């Protein structure tokens, strides 16, 4: 069954269709959230919240766009909200800390344990994080959200040719950053 057929069934209140839709996308949603927030619990919560919002807003789904792109936007927005809240909390704390100690300290950014275990994965993870935002996003859309070129173009509102050229330059920059990574 296609995504469109599933969504049409969901709109008619078919919970099984929604379950199938979630099953099809939950790993991508989680991986995308994980990419942004780098915290397994928060990523799990955000990915589930994204599906809840989708369920509540199913009537707003535009059938001329890919479901994967819609899901990506929701997950990304929730992640940005989460990071903003976290930044504000950190700001309040760090402000008090700085007053006490006379300086500010950067919060530690924990790597997921699984990545710690694998040197190559850590290299890639770090390298992708170092890319400029536009390059990072195009890699994320292609490799984590697994969207097609057309779906990426629709999601980012850019021409198809731009998707390919942006991917090319992002990968070239990654290649530079990953020099020496075990192949």
């Amino acid at each position, binding site marked *: 069954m296609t995504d469109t057929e599933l969504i049409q069934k969901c709109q008619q209140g078919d919970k099984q269709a929604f379950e199938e839709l979630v099953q099809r996308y939950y790993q991508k949603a989680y991986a995308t959230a994980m990419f942004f927030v780098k915290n397994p619990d928060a990523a799990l919560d955000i990915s589930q919240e994204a599906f809840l919002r989708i369920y509540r807003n199913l009537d707003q789904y535009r059938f001329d766009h890919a479901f994967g*792109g*819609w899901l990506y*936007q929701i997950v990304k927005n929730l992640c940005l909200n989460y990071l903003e809240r976290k930044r504000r909390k950190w700001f309040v704390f760090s402000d008090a800390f700085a007053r006490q100690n006379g300086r500010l300290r950067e919060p530690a950014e924990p790597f997921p344990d699984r990545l710690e275990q694998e040197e190559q*994965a850590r290299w890639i993870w770090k390298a992708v994080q170092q890319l400029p935002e536009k390059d990072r996003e195009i890699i994320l859309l*292609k490799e984590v959200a697994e969207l097609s070129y057309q779906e990426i173009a629709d999601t980012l509102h850019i021409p198809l040719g731009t998707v*390919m050229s942006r*991917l090319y330059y992002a*990968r070239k920059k990654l290649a530079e950053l990953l020099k020496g990574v075990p192949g």
Partner: protein
Amino acid sequence: MIRSCDEIKILMMKYLDQEASAEEQEALRRHLGHCQPCQDEFHQLKTIKKVTGEMKKQLLPEMAWEEYWRHLYNRLERGIAWILISLGIIILLGYASVDFVRDVLQTTQLSPLQKVGILVLVLGMIVLFVSVLREKLMIRRHDKYREVQR
């Protein structure tokens, strides 16, 4: 058709992402057959494609589908339950307030000043409730990441 190295770079992307047509794949093979710099670049990009393709697997935990769905379904059901509970409370509170005000106005055991005091208190509570509700709605409306539509 002879293609420039710049055009070939785009074909490389399409090939690696499995979006190239048979004709484009053939054009790429032909070009790589006689262009060493493009061949080197293609192998480099192929490695990058491979390693970034594996990145997703590294981001995923050992996550059981049944557990994920159970959590999500519970949240879905509870969300609906909370909306119903809230609606019920608002209706009952509204009804009780109207009833209370009517009783206060009709009773002869209270002095006019006491009645005014009670009515002002009720009015204050209603204004406070509306104000908090309005603030919540305004925050929701101006939250730039609130919605999720394209």
